[in-house]
């Protein structure tokens, strides 16, 4: 019998962290994701798995605590929402520069500035194009259900450790706040010290017993050496792009018009596809699951049969740029999205698609 629960997306993040062997969570409250730390504090994992949970004094401190724990090879995470993630930009750059694995969850809200606590998807640029200084990328996963909020926690850690790169779960206020059925996966224990030595002993700061000392740093004063390091990073990103792009297609086999959307917009887009199909429009849904790497090749392959693409985001149009790059402007790509905390309705999306269809014919 699967262990089924009804959970908020934020609660699922917390439950998954404990059950997948996360070593530490450091965070600072911000709506709409405060339930992550509240749930962790309520579940007291330090008494069971030994996971550390600490409320930091700021998002800046949180990400640097993550940096510290990650330096020691631990599976460390934080969660926040848009303005808090802005504060973490420096830390993310350091993590990427020091090639440290970690998980950052962004349950995003509307900006710019203090903006609104209502849902938004306006952090796509920040998440996928760096989110800090220097040439780096985060591995970005975009859950569209509470089950995926749960499942992407272990997945993000696995990817982060495989590539020694920070990973982000980019959610939104809807996915964080809504409840859905979640199947709790079998628990994965935290790695033992021996397992840790084996997996991260070559680089993590665990005390230099029986080995040369390890140094975690991102500073390099010799430009020639630093260029080589940057090239190594870029080679890593190229490998990630090659191997890790994930996406989902719904009703695409005969589709002429495609909605491309992630997260909550994909759920709304799916409903819009249902509405359009009921009116005889051959619509389908392409849902990027990884936003970085963006599933460009698969989208381009699908685009060959299409007449038009509608990119649906809760923003003024961010992912649409990657969609256009992917299909190299071979067909019309329009954007539809509400912002400022307003969530588009399935009807609005369907109407926008019909308008695009008219323009394409």
């Amino acid at each position, binding site marked *: 019998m699967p262990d089924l629960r009804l959970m908020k997306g934020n609660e699922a993040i917390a439950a998954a962290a404990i059950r997948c062997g996360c070593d530490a969570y450091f965070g600072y409250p911000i709506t709409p994701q405060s339930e992550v730390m509240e749930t962790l504090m309520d579940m007291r994992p330090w008494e069971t798995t030994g996971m550390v949970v600490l409320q930091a004094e700021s998002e800046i401190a949180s990400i640097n605590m993550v940096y510290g724990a990650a330096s020691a090879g631990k599976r460390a995470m934080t969660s926040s929402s848009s303005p808090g993630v802005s504060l973490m930009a420096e830390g993310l750059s350091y993590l990427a520069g020091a090639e440290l694995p970690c998980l950052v969850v962004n349950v995003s809200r509307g900006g710019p500035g203090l903006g609104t606590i209502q849902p938004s998807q306006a952090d796509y640029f920040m998440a996928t194009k760096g989110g800090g200084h220097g040439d780096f990328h985060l591995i970005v996963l975009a859950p569209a259900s509470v089950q995926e909020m749960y499942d992407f926690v272990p997945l993000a850690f696995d990817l982060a450790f495989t590539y020694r790169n920070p990973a982000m779960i980019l959610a939104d206020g809807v996915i964080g706040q809504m409840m859905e059925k979640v199947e709790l996966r079998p628990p994965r224990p935290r790695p033992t010290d021996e397992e840790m030595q084996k997996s991260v002993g070559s680089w993590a700061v665990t*005390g230099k017993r029986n080995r040369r000392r390890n140094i975690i740093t991102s500073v390099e004063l010799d430009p020639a050496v630093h260029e080589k390091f940057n090239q190594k990073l870029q080679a890593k990103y190229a490998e990630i792009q090659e191997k890790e792009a994930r996406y989902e297609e719904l009703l695409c086999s005969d589709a002429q018009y495609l909605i491309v959307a992630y997260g909550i917009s994909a759920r709304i887009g799916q409903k819009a596809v249902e509405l359009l199909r009921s009116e005889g429009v051959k619509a389908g849904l392409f849902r990027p699951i990884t936003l970085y790497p963006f599933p460009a090749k698969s989208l381009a392959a699908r685009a060959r049969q299409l007449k038009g693409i509608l990119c649906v985001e809760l923003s003024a149009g961010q992912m649409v740029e990657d969609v256009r790059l992917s299909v190299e402007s071979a067909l019309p790509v329009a954007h539809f999205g509400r912002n400022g905390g307003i969530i588009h309705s399935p009807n609005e999306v369907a109407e926008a698609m019909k308008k695009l269809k008219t323009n394409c014919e």
Partner: protein
Amino acid sequence: MNIEEIVKPENLAYAKSKTLTDAPMHYCPGCSHGTVHKILAEAIEELGIQDKAVGIAPVGCAVMLYSYLDIDWVEAAHGRAPAVATGIKRTNPHLHVFAYQGDGDLAAIGTAEIIHACNRGENITVIFINNAIYGMTGGQMAPTTLLGMKTATTPQGRQANLNGYPFKVSELMAQLPGVSYVTRQAVHTPGAVRQAKRALKKAVEKAYAQKGTSFVEVVATCSSGWKLSPTEANRWMAENMLPFYPLGDLKDN
């Protein structure tokens, strides 16, 4: 008895700590950083904790600190060493964790992180180098710059109404219940160096014994920033800094 007869391995009375690497230090002549690195290395060696010590290097002149001590190191973002140390220590209670910070790193950009790490009573040792100036960026005002002291950004001397007051960090830290040991030391004379090393060892032992945070301020010189020779800088420090930042233990619980 000639020198050759004295200089024999069996007569060696004092040598560079084995915990120091052979890398030549990049600091200016006479810089206090080197002396503090040395006593930190000696303290680690004498306590026998080289294999379970992790240091956090700051941003500032000591950014390359990890080159000089043969232990595991993490280089932190500017001001964030106490948060990084928290992350390491909380997930690895068996390690000795040191955060090494200058006055800009600790007392300006990283004020929130140091106060909260200390207030939580993280079981770490903080080494705070206070030379009242920003050395690496070229001698600008620090939070701890004395009133009247000339720096690149206070060319007429620090004025309270314009630049605020010098910040007595150790006095502030001593107020926090999470901190068990606060001491202010210097390394400008042989006696001061001996005393500072004793304080450092005590700080490390207390933090490891989970008494809370140990906070060791070292009043230091910056001869380049102060535009004095190293020996003049030591003298200036004794005459001007120490009356305002008096040496000794401020708290020892």
